[in-house]
């Protein structure tokens, strides 16, 4: 399984006045790519020429790789503010944003 995050984060404003609520939101999702091993066949392919002659071609069972791609929801689970004067951030109920007082 490989998970690729396609997520960006940004503030809702370029600058804030004191006392305003700062909101940082994430947008995007994650792509989960998983691979499993399966088999195909055996197959009998009947082929026919233009003149109407037919023949059966046999294909043995063969291993194949099955790739499954799933888009996944992404949420914020933690926030760390390492500013010299860090704020108290709260994660929204849907996990898509964090907010603090400017």
């Amino acid at each position, binding site marked *: *399984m490989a*998970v690729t*995050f396609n*997520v*960006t*984060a*940004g*503030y809702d404003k*370029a*600058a*804030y*006045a*004191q*006392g*305003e609520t*700062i909101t*940082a939101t*994430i947008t995007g*999702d*994650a792509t*989960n790519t998983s691979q499993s091993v399966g088999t195909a066949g055996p197959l009998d392919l009947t082929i026919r020429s233009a003149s109407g002659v037919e023949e059966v071609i046999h294909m043995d069972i063969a291993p194949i790789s099955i790739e499954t791609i799933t888009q*996944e*929801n*992404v*949420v*914020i*689970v*933690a*926030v*760390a*503010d*390492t*500013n*010299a*004067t*860090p704020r*108290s*951030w709260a994660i929204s109920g849907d996990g898509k944003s*964090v907010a603090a*007082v*400017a």
Partner: protein
Amino acid sequence: MPLTLTIRAASGATKQVFLPTPVVAAPSAEPNATTTGTKGTLTTYSGSYTISGDNVLIKDKILNKLLRVTGRDVTIENCRWTASSGWGIDAEGSINLKVRNSTIVGSGNSCILTGENTLVEYCDLSGYDNGIMLSGATATLQYNYIHDLHPGAVGEAHVDGIQMGGGQNGVLIKGNSIRSWDTSCIIMKCDWGSGSPIRNITIDGNWLRNQPGKSSIAATIYAYSNQAYVENIVISNNFLEPGYTGALAYDTTAARNAVTWTNNKHITTGAVVPKP
């Protein structure tokens, strides 16, 4: 990057996303009762008044007595005190306390006794002998409204807006409005022995004035070596109402020489105040 968001996909995979520090405009006007203190609905605090644990958040509460803080990374936001027992917050021994947007009214020594690396910002502080007294070495005190201070029951008026008594090293006092009387708006005086100098203090962009209605006007800023020495005191871009000893009081030539005095203006006339 100062803000790190840990995100998690439905499958459990996690990643960190980084954001720069949000830009918050510094107030361009003098702090007052409107721009500081609590806002919105508060509820009565029912927790312990002794905070020794770490990472504690007290928010949107009304407190009615001294809060003793000794823990690390305690945050107090949008709280209102009406305490009258020595201090509003006694944080001596704490580390990284943050007090924001809170109102402390009461009587006693000081609204806040700081710990190590205390942040006090956007607070409305009044009623005590002193607004903020520093016990730790470092602190950031910014955009507060400190006013209507008065001496306690003893009647010995030593009213100071912000008091440093020794051992401070790395303090930023920025953008505050301090109205004081009797003694000073900001006092740096090494009262706690020869081993406790006061060093690396920046006082920038404050409004320092006398408390209206008080005949005993304050010295604006004190820089007294007294028992030790003061060193690297930067006083810049302040609006000052010179008090009874002028805008800066000092006890020795060395103390005066320790002060870098830049672009300080008279609070009424706007005229540049030369270094006293």
